[in-house]
């Protein structure tokens, strides 16, 4: 049976709407940004409340100059995560475009891949221009599991959705923070505008892919999906804490620093807040069975 054959009309309505928006709001990213030659070091590169020290004593103990340096390197790390995350998701979508099961989505996939390629370009440009590098991706790059193709498709689109929703949490807040440099706000605002469409589509696709799996597979298989996604949510939020960024900001003992932050109750609250909207979506739709344990 085709993966799309049992889907309701709602995904078609969403596809019509977001393809129209993609066409109507298309912009040329290579002309949109007026990149300053350099950005001042002594400034907030991201909102202080979004940094990984927020909610811990380090937010008070470090000097403003140290915190500003950390905000720079955490920003470069965040945009580097975007570059790597987008490359991974584009590869997965390209694997599925115009293949059986994705007939209806393929038209949108063309827009998605094009837009994501452009996002990857402006995030990479920001990193290289203002940080002089893109942080290396150390995530495992081998295939995770040999699971059934339809389960793999659900996991792929669930991972894409989780990644996009976490990034959007930051984009919305950075884009709306008028104390930040205009180019920082612009990059985040433009990404947020495009991602709103991708997230709307991703939520509908994940719901429908899961409803097909729920009719077909045993509870044991579905529990394995549930467990994997809960672990993925946790791993995703932990990936925001970068020893390399701490080292570049001259934080002593960056690994110990990272461990202390991850164990701090204030950070658990922040992590839960970052993931709340996403966890609510997965639990509300019965894909993840309980609130993810973020400890």
């Amino acid at each position: 049976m085709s993966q799309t054959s049992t889907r309701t009309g709602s995904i078609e309505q969403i596809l019509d709407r977001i393809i129209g928006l993609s066409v109507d709001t298309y912009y040329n990213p290579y002309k949109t940004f007026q990149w300053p030659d350099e950005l001042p070091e002594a400034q907030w590169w991201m909102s202080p409340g979004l940094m990984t020290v927020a909610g811990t004593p380090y937010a008070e103990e470090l000097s403003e100059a140290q915190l500003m340096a950390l905000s720079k390197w955490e920003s470069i790390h965040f945009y580097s995560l975007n570059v790597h995350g987008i490359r991974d998701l584009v590869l997965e979508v390209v694997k599925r475009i115009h293949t059986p099961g994705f007939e209806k989505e393929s038209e949108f996939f063309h827009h998605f891949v094009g837009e994501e390629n452009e996002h990857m370009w402006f995030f990479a440009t920001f990193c290289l221009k203002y940080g002089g590098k893109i942080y290396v991706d150390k995530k495992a790059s081998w295939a995770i599991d040999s699971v059934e193709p339809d389960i793999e498709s659900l996991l792929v689109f669930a991972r894409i959705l989780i990644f996009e929703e976490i990034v959007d949490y930051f984009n919305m807040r950075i884009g709306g923070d008028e104390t930040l440099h205009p180019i920082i706000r612009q990059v985040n605002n433009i990404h947020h505008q495009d991602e709103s469409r991708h997230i709307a589509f991703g939520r509908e696709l994940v719901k429908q892919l899961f409803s097909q799996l729920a009719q077909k597979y045993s509870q044991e298989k579905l529990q394995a999906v549930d467990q994997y996604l809960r672990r993925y949510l946790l791993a995703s939020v932990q990936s925001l804490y970068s020893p390399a960024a701490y080292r570049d900001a001259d934080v002593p003992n960056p690994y110990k620093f990272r461990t202390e932050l991850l164990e701090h109750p204030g950070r658990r609250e922040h992590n839960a807040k970052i993931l709340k909207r996403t966890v609510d979506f997965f639990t509300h739709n019965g894909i993840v069975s309980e609130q993810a344990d973020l400890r």
Partner: protein
Amino acid sequence: MTGDPRLASVKDWLLSRKPELADLDLDFDLIENRVIDSLSFLEFVFFLEELTGRELQATAETVNAFRSLHNIQKEILNGSL
């Protein structure tokens, strides 16, 4: 198991995440047997970086260095990965 305390630390780290395993042989395939998987790999890399005091080149080409305790000892603890 050799007497290298760093290797013992690696083994302890892995066993603490897989309580169903009583022990790990030096040549036990950690990836094939899912002692390390894609979701725990980054934390494992950070643990090894802290242990060795240097950044590791964790890429698809170097994945075999992480495949067994024997390889970790040779390529990471005593090597230059």
